């Protein structure tokens, strides 16, 4: 046994040339083979990579899908997102627990199964969903969940749970997944027709500066959330002086309720890779990285195969598209479970084999990014737009959308609607139109832009989806009147507490304070002062947090407070006796009784 661990570590380390910046690859490979990275393994890796053991432990403990304690040979991670919850994840959890005889966080005695929760896995349109050793199982219910466990106990092979593959490339043997695309609206840009390779051939006939000019003319803005003008980002990266530059495609898609990049990666990966290649040409990069979230590992072999085909076709490698001296290739970096790694500087840290801590800015990635080299990080969808713009020109792109937000947007809709799925719509569409498209019968509240976006009510349904009105990286979650919005807000705060990297004080502590405050209010122990404190805390987090996570994570609380004040008012009543409701006397007495081991006579008189 020990022998084989030693072997395994050696092989994994040698495979990356004992390069400590590839630590994440080593850890992912060992975790999947031996279900844990324990102290002994850490010491072995430390030896091979000549890295202090504590640094390795630091990385292992950062990521959800890496663990020092053994997981089961079959590791089940059930998605804990708000949408999964309202589609019945708790009943599914109970079924798993019952069939396996273990609680969440535990491993069966025989070491065969482990059960854990994880943040949104990008399947909100077919929730509840879970990951079983990387295989995605969707639309779970109690019966299906029991059946899954019973089958697994017999064959121990998650892949054979896929009885019927999903549509499109989901049924490609290299993917072979039950995931369905759920594409309900195809627009002209992302889903428009395209000839493979044309965009690159057009690009290399232009100068890099002309390519950037075309992008600026299209007024394409980043689709990952921040909306930064793509042409300008590339111009900065191009202007940076260095002998090596990088283009990174952000396929971390961690914002709960977002799953549009999943569909792009499944159906249109060539457009993403073409966009990266055009970016490389424009900024002068020779290497590209697709940072793929661990949850999408089921797409890995397929994507590798597409890359290989592009190499064969001369669309990657040396002298691309017969352009003398244009050399570029792409590698895929797998993540290991951390929402923060979608933030571009955290993503870079992670791709460097470190904890997914965001970096200090300045310097910006365009000046000093991956391994210190100028780097442009772009979202999958942004890069797909680039391909279309190069192929058909800036004007045909910017005629869609509105002035500040040109083109179309891929939207992922989930929750209380009849057609959850992916919609490509022109920017500027009203929220109400979108809700109608998705068949939302009686929407009461909509979370636009994921937990870090805003919770809006009916009054806001005429507002437009675009950067300067209601922005979204793609996530739209619909809630009808039957939903408990305060609970939903609390669950969003659970998510941020879980996913904060913990580097800076405002976010590490602020999210816990907001979450606890929500719990107090829900329990009926809230006070008017709590709401004042929410606002002050949020203001501080927005101004003082180190990265976009803490700068926006207060939004569920504050936007729900602003848009649904009565929900809070109902819960917060002034105690007629003038007592502070936040002080739970009974609970305090109970606690002191348990500490002292005595029973108070007074506490039982009332």
């Amino acid at each position, binding site marked *: 046994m020990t022998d084989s661990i030693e072997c395994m570590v050696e092989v994994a380390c040698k495979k990356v040339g004992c390069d400590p910046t590839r630590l994440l690859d080593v850890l992912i490979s060992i975790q999947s083979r031996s279900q844990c990275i324990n*102290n002994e393994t*850490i*010491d072995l890796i430390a030896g091979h990579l000549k890295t*202090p*053991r*504590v*640094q390795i*432990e*630091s990385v292992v*403990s*950062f990521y959800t899908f890496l663990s020092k304690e053994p997981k089961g040979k079959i590791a089940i991670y059930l998605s804990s997102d708000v949408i999964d919850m309202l589609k019945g994840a708790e009943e599914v959890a109970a079924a798993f627990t019952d069939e396996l005889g273990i609680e969440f966080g535990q491993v069966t005695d025989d070491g065969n199964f482990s059960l854990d929760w994880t943040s949104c896995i990008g399947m909100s349109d077919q929730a509840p969903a879970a990951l079983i050793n990387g295989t995605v199982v969707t639309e779970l219910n109690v019966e299906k969940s029991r059946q899954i466990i019973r089958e697994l106990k017999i064959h121990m092979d998650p892949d054979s749970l896929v009885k019927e593959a999903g549509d499109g490339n989901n049924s490609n043997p290299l993917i072979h997944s039950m995931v369905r695309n759920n594409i309900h609206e195809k627009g002209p840009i992302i889903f428009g027709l395209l000839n493979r390779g044309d965009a690159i051939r057009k690009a290399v006939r232009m100068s890099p500066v002309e390519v950037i000019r075309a992008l600026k003319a299209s007024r394409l803005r980043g689709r990952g959330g921040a909306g930064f003008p793509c042409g300008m980002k590339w111009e900065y990266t191009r202007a940076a002086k260095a002998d090596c530059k990088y283009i990174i495609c952000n396929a971390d898609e961690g914002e709960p309720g977002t799953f549009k990049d999943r569909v792009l990666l499944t159906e249109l990966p060539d457009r993403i890779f073409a966009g990266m290649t055009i970016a490389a040409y424009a900024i002068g990069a020779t290497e590209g990285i697709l940072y793929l979230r661990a949850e999408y590992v089921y797409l890995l072999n397929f994507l590798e195969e597409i890359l290989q085909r592009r190499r064969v076709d001369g669309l990657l490698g040396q002298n691309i598209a017969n352009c003398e001296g244009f050399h570029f290739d792409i590698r895929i970096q797998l993540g290991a479970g*951390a929402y*923060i790694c979608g933030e571009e500087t955290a993503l870079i840290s992670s791709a460097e084999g470190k*904890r997914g801590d965001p970096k*200090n800015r*300045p310097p910006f990635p365009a000046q000093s990014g991956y391994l210190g080299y100028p780097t442009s990080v772009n979202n999958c969808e942004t890069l797909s737009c680039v391909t279309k713009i190069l192929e058909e020109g800036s004007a045909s792109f910017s005629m869609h959308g509105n002035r500040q937000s040109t083109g179309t947007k891929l939207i992922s809709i989930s929750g209380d609607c009849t057609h959850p799925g992916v919609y490509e719509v022109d920017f500027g569409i009203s929220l109400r139109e979108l809700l109608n498209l998705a068949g939302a019968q009686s929407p009461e509240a909509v979370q636009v832009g994921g937990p870090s976006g805003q919770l809006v009510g009916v009054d806001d349904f005429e507002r437009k989806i675009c950067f300067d009105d209601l922005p979204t990286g793609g996530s739209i979650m619909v809630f009808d009147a039957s939903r408990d919005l305060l609970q939903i807000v609390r669950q969003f705060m659970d998510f941020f*507490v*879980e*996913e*904060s*990297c*913990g*580097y*800076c*004080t*405002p976010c*590490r*502590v*602020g*999210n*816990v*304070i907001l979450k*606890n405050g929500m719990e107090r209010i829900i329990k009926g122990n809230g006070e008017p002062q709590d709401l004042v*404190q929410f606002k*002050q*805390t949020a*203001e*501080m987090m927005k*101004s*003082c*947090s*180190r990265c976009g996570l803490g700068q926006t994570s207060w939004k569920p609380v504050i936007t729900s407070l602003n848009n649904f004040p009565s929900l809070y008012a109902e819960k917060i009543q002034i105690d007629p006796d003038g007592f502070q409701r*936040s002080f739970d006397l009974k609970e305090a007495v109970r606690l002191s009784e348990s500490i002292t081991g005595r029973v108070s006579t007074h506490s039982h008189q009332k």
Partner: protein
Amino acid sequence: MPGKITLEIDGVQIEADQGQYLIDAADNAGVYIPRLCHKPGLEPYGSCRLCTVVVNGRHCSACTTPVANNMVVENATENLQDFRKMIVEMLFVEGNHFCMFCEKSGNCELQGIAYRLGITAPQFPYLWTKKEVDASHPDILIDHNRCILCARCVRTSKDLDGKHVFDFTERGDKKKISVNSSARLAGTDVDITDQALDSCPVGALLRKREGYQVPVGQRLYDLKPIGTNIESPSTDNDKK
């Protein structure tokens, strides 16, 4: 003079060297910007966020922001001081800080800054998180209850001691200092003379049996508020 630039902090013009970080430039000019994770001589880190200032209308941390000519900086505004109070209070409620019997009292930068900002009791509820103590080493103690995750020990051990005794493990509110051994601090190559031990701003990393050599009441910040050495460098006190 080449490389000199000027900028403005709270309406006062100061000179700075090109390439300097804002907090260091302010220090040289006798302007105190509150800080905890910053320590001269270490790589800027930017985790506590106490040094948050407004530069040309945008919030940023002074310890990680390089100076630029004609920068306009707000530092001691009421709004920023309120934010700083909140941050310090968050650090207090996140850990378990009992100043009245902490041997670092009077020399503790967290306590010092709390007094300077006028905090009497935190407005946030205590989180009462359970934290560990590592007393395995014969001469050195780690008390996680008092750690504020500033990474000063991590950086000092790496950059000044040439070791890697400390690093962080876990993430979010579970993030904590860990040591380079599976056998706790005693298993590491930490040494009583390591500069890392002096880098801790609070009472989380302590040499054993030294606590009360200077009586309470005569310690650094018992005598002069924290930051005095920056504002009036002539005072001998607080020259750490």
